[in-house]
Every structure is written in structure tokens, then in C-alpha cells.
């Protein structure tokens, strides 16, 4: 790597703050900055960037890489704003016509996104055969009907993860008919489960402008400092994608925040297998780090009212944070879900306000020194009971996320960290790393680049090992395509699930490869 470009800048856009950190070539934190997240997101990013780049320890010209974890895409879906108009093509007649595309979408989101949907003949069987040939004529007719209105096209074929031949053939036809309109192919986005993968593909197509805008905004904010580093985006599995890949797959940025905090916590402590609690102002996420990566959820994930099968970290989220409001009740006080949020410094007792919060409880119980402890002490009995309730809630969340019996360490990050006691059932050790308040931005800055495959395989002449080798190779190639260093990319997860109720053997294999950033 160029010696002059040895610094990494990580940015995390959170619900309350946008954080920026700079790490040196050894990964040590040399500067950090926190700015309020702005409604347009971009202004907050620019402010945090400006702040960290003017820290004395930072020599801006040495910034070689910028890693961004952003909520742009999530917000666009939640607010139904700045979305592209998408033509939805499903290749799945007659085998899927019992449920039309976008059938389960909230009406307002569908209205904002869709210019038309079709199901054309085609699709692939689980064993790679064609169900029926691709209906090229039907596809051309549909494209004619949306021509001029469609700003993007999403294409989803039955069992695209087994073979992408119908999706690829459809893409050729779309380019012929509609020219340079951006195309999302479902096999690049999601795994098995037609409706969820189709939903993700359509959302991805709708987010192209948002992704391009944020990429441009970050680029110009950096240009203002005369910087031209390589830009990466954090994705929801805790790894990075190159800017050009992210612009084509913006939907994968949804949910990158929790993954970054888990990875950041790991990095700050050096742990590769641990539990992580990210305690914020309103809520706490408890996740699990396995082999250096957040454990992924197997359940369907709801984004803006739409069911998807995104690769999201498996989390237990509870409504407990530093701003959670305490309400006295019998036998135990109520803690949350209401929170004073960003008004903590006006409303909490220790800051002279009138609302008892969990921050006041932490002060009254001696877990935190902050503000004026007298008003908190005056309500000590109630606040101590609230603290007991909070400890129970945490213990319960930890117990729910654990996958094995026995004790495990817990790394605590986030501003609400002092709520967590030093001893918890099932926890061998509570670790509170330095700089835990910017764990998310650090998580983005240190992430590796990954690739993944989720397909159904059939044991061929080479048997099981040939099948697994092929899956490993596909995952490896995906990681390298996304920007990983081919020489240091390894398989980090491999999961085989034989399919039930079939007389011929077939196995679903999920493999993930990851490696450090490729230098250039």
C-alpha cells in the first residue's frame, strides 16, 4: 500500500449521531468526532467528516480509504421518498401465478415504487432444469407498456439461486428494449424464497438514485478537502462493498448499523467469539459475534412493511436505554419503552429536569457519575428497583440470544453502557472497551469484504466434497468481485441443509467468504 495513503476513515450514521473515526495503519484510533444526524443525512456526514479531518492528529492527505455505514436507504424506504419508479418482472409463469408481485406490500410504498408488474413464462427447477422456456415475447410486450415510465427494472426468476440463465437472458432483452435503464437481478440480492427475494430486488431497483446521491455527496465532501480515497459502503452482514458495487446493490446497506457495532466491539476488545450489547438512548441490541462475524438471523426481516430475506444480524432488541423513562409501579417500576431520547440533558433528574430516567437510576446506584446526584438520591428506592428491573431485562435478552449453555463474555458499547452491571447471569466477564462510544464507526472502518452463496446443489460424480468446493469457490469469487484481496480471502461460514421430502439427494449450501481490502 502507498505509504502516504495509510489512514482509514470510518463513518457511521446513527439515529441520534453521525460518528467519524480515523484509524492508522496499525488500526489504532487517532481521532474521533460526533455530530448530530441531520434529517437529510448528508449534511450530518459532511459535518462529522469536516470535524474529524481537522483534528490535529489527522493528516488528511494520508486518508486512503473511507468506509461509510449509512441509513440513507432505510430512511428512503421508511419515508417512501426519493425512490425510483420500477418495472417488476417475475419469470415464473405458470409456476407462481397464485400470488402476484408486490401483493403483500403496503399500498403507499407500492404506489411510490411500481410502474407495473408482470409474470412472464419461465423459471428454473430446484435441480437446474428449465420449468418452461423463457417467454421472450411476453417480456417484450410488457417492456413496451412501461417504456418511458420505468426508471429501473427488477427481474426475479424462480430458483435464480440455482441457475441465473433466465434472469441473464431477460436482462439482454431489457437492454435491447429499454436501453441503459438500470437492472437488478434477484440472484445478486437475495437467497431462497421467491417473494422475499423479489421484494428485495424491487427495493434495490428503487434505491439506485439514493445510492448514487449519497456516493456523490460523500465524494464531494472529500473533494472539498482535496481527498480522493477509495470509498466503501458497509452492508448488513458486517462486511464492506466497493462503491460501484454498493451503487448497484444499495438495498444491502439496510441494517448495517447493528452489524458495525458488533464488529466494532470485537475489534476494540480483540474477541472473535463473544456477546455484544449496544446500549443506546432508547434501546439496546444484543447480538452475537461468531468467528469474527455477527451471527445472522434465519427469520424473515420486515423493512418498511415489506417481508425480505436480507442477511441481517440476529439481534434481540429491547426498549431499554439511558433515556428510558422510569415509572413507579407495584411491585416493580416500569422501565421504558418511552424515552426522553436526545432531550436527556434537559429532562433527566441529574440535569435538573423532572423526569426520572435510567441514567438517573445508574447515578443513584453508583454505576455512573454524571450531573447532580442529589435529586436522584432523593428517589433512590424507586430508582434502585428500576435498576433491578433493568438488570432482569438485560439478563433475559442475553439468555435469549445465547446459542449454547455455559458462560460467555459480554462486550458493552454505546452511550448507555453504564446501565449494564459488572455481573450478569450466564456472563463470564463484562468488558467495557475504550472508545466504545464510536464502536459503530470503527466497525465500518475495520470491516473486511465478503461474498456469499446460497444455492441448492446436487451431488455429482465428485460427491459431497466437489459440491462444497464449488460453493466455496463461488463465495470466494463474489468476495473478490466486491473488493477483497484474493490472496487473503477465506471461507468464514459454511452451512449444509439437506432437503426433506425428496427421494433424490439435494442440499442447500450457504457459504460466505471474506478477506481484507485489496490494496491498489
Amino acid at each position, binding site marked *: 500500500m502507498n505509504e502516504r495513503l495509510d489512514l482509514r476513515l470510518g463513518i457511521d450514521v446513527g439515529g441520534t449521531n453521525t460518528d467519524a473515526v480515523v484509524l492508522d495503519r496499525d488500526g489504532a484510533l487517532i481521532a474521533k468526532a460526533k455530530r448530530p444526524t441531520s434529517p437529510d443525512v448528508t449534511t450530518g456526514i459532511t459535518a462529522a467528516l469536516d470535524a474529524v479531518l481537522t483534528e490535529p492528529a489527522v493528516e488528511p492527505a494520508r486518508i486512503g480509504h473511507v468506509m461509510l455505514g449509512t441509513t440513507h436507504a432505510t430512511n428512503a424506504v421508511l419515508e417512501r421518498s426519493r425512490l425510483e419508479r420500477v418495472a417488476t418482472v417475475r419469470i415464473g409463469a405458470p409456476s407462481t401465478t397464485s400470488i402476484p408481485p408486490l401483493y403483500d406490500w403496503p399500498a403507499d410504498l407500492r404506489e411510490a415504487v411500481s410502474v407495473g408488474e408482470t409474470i412472464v413464462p419461465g423459471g428454473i427447477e430446484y435441480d437446474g432444469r428449465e420449468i418452461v422456456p423463457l417467454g421472450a415475447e411476453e417480456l417484450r410486450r410488457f417492456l413496451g407498456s412501461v417504456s418511458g415510465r420505468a426508471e429501473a427494472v427488477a427481474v426475479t426468476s424462480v*430458483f435464480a439461486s440455482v441457475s441465473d440463465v433466465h434472469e441473464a437472458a431477460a436482462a439482454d432483452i431489457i437492454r435491447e428494449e429499454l436501453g441503459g435503464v438500470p437492472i437488478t437481478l434477484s440472484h445478486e440480492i437475495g437467497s431462497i424464497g421467491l417473494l422475499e427475494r423479489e421484494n428485495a430486488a424491487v427495493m434495490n431497483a428503487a434505491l439506485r438514485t439514493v445510492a448514487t446521491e449519497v456516493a456523490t455527496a460523500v465524494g464531494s465532501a472529500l473533494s472539498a478537502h482535496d481527498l480522493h480515497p477509495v470509498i466503501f459502503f458497509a452492508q448488513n452482514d458486517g462486511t464492506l462493498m466497493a462503491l460501484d458495487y454498493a451503487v448497484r446493490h444499495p438495498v444491502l446497506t439496510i441494517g448495517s448499523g447493528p452489524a458495525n457495532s458488533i464488529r466494532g466491539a470485537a475489534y476494540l476488545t480483540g474477541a472473535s467469539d463473544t456477546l455484544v450489547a449496544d446500549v443506546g438512548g432508547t434501546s439496546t441490541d444484543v447480538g452475537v459475534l461468531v468467528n469474527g462475524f455477527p451471527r445472522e438471523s434465519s427469520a424473515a426481516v420486515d423493512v418498511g412493511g415489506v417481508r425480505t430475506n436480507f442477511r441481517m444480524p440476529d439481534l434481540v432488541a429491547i426498549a431499554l436505554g439511558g433515556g428510558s423513562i422510569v415509572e413507579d409501579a407495584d411491585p416493580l417500576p416500569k422501565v421504558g419503552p418511552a424515552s426522553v431520547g436526545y432531550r436527556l440533558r434537559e429532562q433527566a433528574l441529574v440535569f435538573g429536569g423532572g423526569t426520572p430516567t435510567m441514567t438517573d437510576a445508574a447515578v443513584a446506584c453508583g454505576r455512573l457519575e454524571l450531573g447532580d446526584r442529589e435529586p436522584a438520591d432523593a428517589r433512590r428506592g424507586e430508582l434502585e428497583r428500576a435498576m433491578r428491573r433493568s438488570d432482569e431485562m438485560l439478563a433475559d435478552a442475553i439468555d435469549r440470544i445465547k446459542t449454547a449453555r455455559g458462560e460467555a463474555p459480554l462486550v458493552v458499547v454505546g452511550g448507555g453502557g453504564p446501565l449494564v452491571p459488572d455481573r450478569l447471569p450466564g456472563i463470564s466477564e463484562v468488558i467495557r472497551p475504550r472508545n466504545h462510544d464510536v464502536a459503530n464507526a470503527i466497525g465500518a472502518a475495520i470491516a473486511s469484504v465478503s461474498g456469499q452463496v446460497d444455492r441448492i446443489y446436487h451431488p455429482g460424480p465428485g460427491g459431497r466434497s466437489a459440491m462444497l468446493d464449488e460453493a466455496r469457490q463461488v463465495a470466494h469469487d463474489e468476495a473478490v468481485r466486491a473488493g477483497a484481496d484474493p490472496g487473503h480471502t477465506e471461507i468464514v461460514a459454511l452451512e449444509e441443509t439437506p432437503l426433506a*421430502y*425428496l427421494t433424490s439427494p439435494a442440499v442447500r449450501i450457504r457459504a460466505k467468504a471474506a478477506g481484507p481490502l485489496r490494496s491498489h
Partner: protein
Amino acid sequence: MSGRITRIDIEHLAPLARGCSVLGAGGGGDTYTTLLAARYAIERFGPVGLVDLDDLPDDALVMPCGGIGAPVVGIEKLGTGEEGGWIRDGLERVRGQKVAALMAGEIGGANGMQPINWAAHIGLPVVDADGMGRAFPEIPQVTMEIAGISASPAVLTDERGNHISISAVDGAWMERIERTLSVEFGGRASSTEYSLTAAEARTATVRRSVSLAIEIGNAMAAATQPIDALRETVGARVLITGKLTDVERRVTGGFVRGRVEVEGLDDHRGRTVLIEIQNENLVAMDGDRVLASVPDIITVLDSETAEAIHTERLRYGQRVSVVAFPCDPIWRTSGGLRLAGPRSFGYDFDYVPIEDLAA
């Protein structure tokens, strides 16, 4: 209780799906896509009549039906909705008689919902009955088999419109033949077996299971404690409330087998219950003591949401309540137990009804 339901409209689908999951004993497949397909069909073709077998003429032909094959294929190939009509056409040709109504072969899980979708497409009613009152893995594990009804003629179709009529010597051969053909069709097929007259069906099926499923769903949604609703609607007993502390699962011979361990919490602290699984929950044990077994129904519910958890989705750490309730009496006959009692699944003990077992 409100009046009898005589037609299934969109408002009945969510409670029906929930009830089908509870009756599924952990099997029968996820109801999410079949619920959407049924809703879409009713939106286009109108509600589906729900008829009692007593209200059909004696000689009316009832067509049991459902899907067969790998559930994972079903989440990609959602079906056309026309399959029920194709099966009906095939069966009418072979039997030379018009089909009067469709019936779920199994009420448990997705297969309990599927006939609603198909019936809406062809404007036929469904009967308020099914062939299991729960879910079981194999074609001959139906009450019609106990009653001596023939599995043949069967009609098997795919989503392209291929269809095959099958005459098999018995239910076990029907299972072998259909399983093989469904692989050729792409891992999943739709089929009918054990077609019968309304007169035969009155004693050879589990009666009123569709309205029971809807009632279960409605009662659970209305109750502050959904599990209490199960006590009242199906006589459910809570075997344990606790946390899944061990999950062991493997696929052998095309079936998912395994066991899960539930450690008691709160009032149940200090106890551990083991559940044996073969696609469905088969047996619940406390040490050497059997708490419940097939053919009675054992269902694992999420403690927070009270949703039934499919056996493939059981995971360490989940907070669950395990409930068990009586199967239809037809399964408790010697014929029923030969087909689906503990010994038929390889266990070395005799069946004791849940009501007679110590809690």
C-alpha cells in the same frame, strides 16, 4: 359461540392459518404463502362455501387434496392456483362422477389452507372436515385409510398441467409412487387420494376441523392469554413453559428427525421436557415418563406471540410453551394406532390418551 360459518371470506383466513399451524403439531409447512394465495383467490373469485357433510347428498363425491413434496420448493414455486381444478378434472374422468366439494387431506399447516385457494378458483365448496385433524408425514396416515377407503384412484399434477392418474395396490405404494413422481415434477406436486362419498366421509374423516381451526385462531386472537384459549377450544394441557436448551436435528430417509429439550421457567422451574421429532412433534417425555404422544397433538408455541413454531424453526434460546391435546377419537382405534401410534414410529411403548396421563 357465534353461528356456524357457512362461507370462508378474507376475514377468516388469518385465524384459519393460525389454527392450522396449532393443529399441525409442528409440521404441515409454513402457512405464509398459502394464506396470500387464498386471499388473492377470494379477492378475484369470491368467498368459498364451507359445507357440513350432513348437508351433502349421500352420494356426493368429496375430493381430499393437498400438496406433496419438499417445503423449500414451495417457497419458490408458489403454484398457479389452477392445480385443484386440474386434479378435479382428472378425478372426474377416472371416476365418471362430478366432484361436489374439496376437502383438505390434512388440516395441519399449509395443506389446511390450500383447498380454500383451489376451491375459490373452480367455484366449489370445501367440506368442514379433513383426513387427519392434524399433520402427518405420509399419504396413508389418514383417517380414510383406517375406514378402509382406497387411496386409488389418485391424480397427481404439476403447475404446467401435466397430470397422472394412479392406481396403486395400497396406501404405502401410493406414497412411494407419488413421492418419486413429485421429484420428477420439480420437487413438489398437487394431488388427490382417498376420494369418497359424503356418506362414507361422515364416519371416515375428522369432522368440523376447518371451523375448529378458525375458532382456535379467533379465540387466540381475542384472549389475553392465548394458551387459555387453547385449553377451552381443544382441551389443551400445558406440558411445560420454559426455554429451548438443546436442539438436535438431522435429515434421514427424506425426513427431518431430531429432539429438543425444554427447561422449565417460573412455575415449571426444575423440570425438563424432551420432545422427539419426525417432521412433526411425536412424543414429549419427562425423564422416562411419557407426557404425551402421537397420535395426540403436541404443539410448541412461542411464549411471547403464542404462534405455533414449525419444527424446522425451533432454535436454542426460544421461550416456549409446549401444549398437548387429544387427537380425533378415530386415531385411538386399533386401526388408527397401527397407522400412527407410538409403535408405528418405532417407539417401544403403548399409546395412552393424554387425558389418562399424569400431568
